[in-house]
């Protein structure tokens, strides 16, 4: 029948580009793994040749990681006690710190980006705080926040808030003027403007800041675990390993951080792709 033929035709056309896209995806993934494999191989060769105690081979490192963290029972996803006692608290600290810092960054960034008045009042102080080296302020943090978790969280938030803040402010300030005029014409409330227009158009830049903040939070998490009073965490294990010259363990922590950073970033990109779908599509050159 004619109708079915007409329906069938576009469907056939449709499948082709989709399959092509999937093939492309598979190819880049394969490529990525290939690059990674080659680099690891080079690393193995280089460390073997160098034979320096400071640079153990990847094989040694992985063995150590396995023994230290992933030798637990299967029902606990193979996580060992050491892993449960150190990796999980670290991730918890990082997650809370990241969430808090990101939220503060977005809120402050919007305030600074949107209101000339707030900008004027806060600009100096914020720029000042941004340049202040947190390690020099440990004592002040200690006095204000006390030992342990609260101080660690404050430390993480204080360190990662800046990229989010600056990029959000920049995004909020660079909203297409005609969009704002449209809002003004239709008398949208402040909240509506903020939520429906300013936020979405600042989102792409905000995400650049968030992505920076994410891996920064991993770094600062490690820093925070060097602070007085820490008794567990990846950072704690890292320094402990270093002070005992247990270089394979130190490298294990470094590699674990790298892997965590990589995984977190992948998750982040998935979220970004969902939230910024419109942006990607609109930016893609047609066709």
């Amino acid at each position: 029948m004619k109708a079915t033929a007409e329906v069938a035709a576009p469907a056939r056309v449709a499948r082709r580009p989709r399959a092509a896209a999937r093939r492309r995806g598979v190819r880049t993934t394969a490529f990525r793994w290939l690059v990674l494999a080659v680099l690891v191989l080079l690393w193995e060769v280089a460390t073997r040749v160098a034979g320096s105690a400071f640079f153990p081979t990847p094989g040694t490192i992985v063995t150590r990681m396995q023994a230290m963290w992933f030798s637990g029972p299967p029902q606990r996803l193979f996580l060992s006690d050491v892993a449960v006692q150190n990796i999980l608290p670290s991730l918890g600290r990082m997650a809370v710190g990241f969430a808090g810092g990101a939220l503060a960054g977005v809120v402050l960034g919007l305030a600074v980006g949107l209101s000339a008045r707030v900008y004027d009042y806060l600009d100096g102080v914020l720029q000042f705080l941004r340049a202040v080296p947190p390690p020099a302020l440990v004592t002040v943090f200690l006095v204000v926040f006390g030992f342990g978790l609260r101080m660690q969280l404050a430390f993480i938030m204080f360190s990662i808030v800046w990229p989010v803040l600056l990029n959000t402010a920049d995004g909020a300030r660079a909203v297409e003027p005609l969009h704002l005029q449209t809002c003004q014409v239709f008398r949208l409330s402040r909240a509506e403007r903020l939520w429906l227009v300013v936020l979405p158009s600042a989102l792409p830049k905000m995400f650049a800041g968030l992505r920076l903040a994410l891996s920064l939070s991993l770094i600062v998490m490690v820093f925070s675990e060097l602070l007085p009073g820490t008794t567990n965490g990846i950072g704690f294990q890292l320094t402990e390993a270093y002070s005992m010259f247990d270089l394979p363990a130190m490298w294990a922590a470094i590699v674990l951080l790298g892997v965590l950073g990589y995984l977190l970033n992948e998750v982040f990109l998935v979220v970004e792709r969902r939230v910024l779908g419109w942006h990607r599509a609109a930016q893609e050159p047609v066709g």
Partner: protein
Amino acid sequence: MLEIDNLSHVYGAGTPNEHRAIEGLNLSVAEGELLCIVGPSGCGKSTLLRSIAGLISPTGGQVKVEGNLVRQTPDNLAVVFQDYSRSLFPWMSVADNVALPLRRRGMDKKARREAAMEALESVGLSGAERKYPFQLSGGMQQRVAIARALAYRPTLMLMDEPFGSVDAQTREDLEDLVLKVRGHHQMTIVLITHDIDESVYVGDRVVVLSKAPAHVVGDLKVDLPEPRDQITTREHPDFVHLRAEVGRLVRGHAAVV
């Protein structure tokens, strides 16, 4: 409804790019009137519109809407911008774009959606509501912007070359749509156009602006039989006469010499 009194606007005063866009412009529009503005390219029509909408504060003179001095955007006003593609929100679907201003109308989600669909249908875009602006052709985007303004049911509607990017047939349909809506909802409309025929066909009055700095050089009452009709009205001798008249006035002030 709208009173413009000795309006002037200078862009970038004191800079090397200083430009006097409007000078000593007087104009008043009655309630329910449909005023068409024509004038040479770059004379200051859009600037005038922005002043009425309270988007810029003119450097001289004043604008009053319903007796109130315009300091910020007056209530119940809608604008169809000349740069329609930039005035749509790329992160919203077409339907959401149209429904957005209706939030101020205190309508619930369903009512907003229905009103948006209705407006989209009236501009010939039913079926496109789920698309995003970048997936539409230029003319379709322009119609979305028109639908957004129409759905809002403003008492004063400002339209800056609203039908510039659509084909002849659609253009006529949209002209009739504007006329119909105006009649139904007692809107006052200010419409900028470069199409002289159009200005005479839809307008109750046609105002011709001079080249920059803009001021009024012609103000013609259009007394054509109502309801207007694309065929008979355009054949009416008064139409032919008025159109020639407007044409002469515009030509006297064209941009390219």
